């Protein structure tokens, strides 16, 4: 189904042909997915072991009646309300070094959307050598300082979004700043797929 009437036929074809892997379907992942589905992308691999909790609703793309559901199931339901024709591969598992390749090995571009620094670090170190674009986030907690959120290209294929300093150990994760980071991740992924400047 065509959800984005502003794409050229070439862009539409490009967006429909790629598979995006999203590791984590929380504050970053659920919002990255929402943006990419609205943009016209249709094929995703989504992994998250967690369930929707009441405390997630301050920033994550879920609703009150989804509390208790697996995030993979809940996000799939919400994304299909935007575009019913999506191809979604859902993995309600914890991502480890061991299952990373079997879950995401087929993806053309990877989005890191975990919440803890250790998982971010593991994911980046293990996927960057695959040579495909990896879009990751670090530093998105608190309020304000919008202009410190940016995208850096690191090495040949890592794109790092955020302010690199505001962690959830010190500051709360809030919708506007988490949303900014998610939108920057989605915008970077879309630009890389289209081959325009990130």
């Amino acid at each position, binding site marked *: 189904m065509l959800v984005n009437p502003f794409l050229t036929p070439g862009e539409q074809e490009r967006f429909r042909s790629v598979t995006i892997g999203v590791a984590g379907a929380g504050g970053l992942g659920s919002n990255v997915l929402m943006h990419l589905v609205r943009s016209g992308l249709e094929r995703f691999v989504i992994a998250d072991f967690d369930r929707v909790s009441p405390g997630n609703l301050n920033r994550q793309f879920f609703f009150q009646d989804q509390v208790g559901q697996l995030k993979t199931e809940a996000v799939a339901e919400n994304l299909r309300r935007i575009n019913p024709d999506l191809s979604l591969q859902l993995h309600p598992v914890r991502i480890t070094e061991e299952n990373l390749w079997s879950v995401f090995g087929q993806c053309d571009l990877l989005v890191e959307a975990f*919440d803890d620094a250790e998982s971010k670090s593991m994911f980046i170190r293990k996927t960057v050598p695959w040579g495909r674009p990896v879009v990751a986030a*670090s530093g998105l907690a608190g309020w304000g300082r919008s202009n410190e959120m940016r995208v850096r290209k690191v090495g040949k294929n890592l794109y790092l979004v955020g302010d690199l300093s505001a962690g959830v150990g010190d500051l709360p994760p809030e919708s506007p700043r988490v949303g900014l980071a998610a939108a920057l991740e989605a915008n970077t992924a879309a630009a890389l797929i289209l081959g325009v400047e990130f």
Partner: protein
Amino acid sequence: MITIEFNGKLEEIAEATTLLEFLTGKNLTNPHLILELNGEILTKDALSSDDSPELENGDRLNAFSLVGGG
């Protein structure tokens, strides 16, 4: 002394300083650092005491902290 560029700024350091020694001196203790040396992302081994490479004159080093939140 040799000169390297660290996070965009020139710095003079002693010859034969290893990456690990340099970062320890900078108090960069975040265990989740992404390091980029001359445009390449380094693996974790670059920070093990056995395999940490010596920095060379003209090296460009960048360190990016990974902090939690998502």
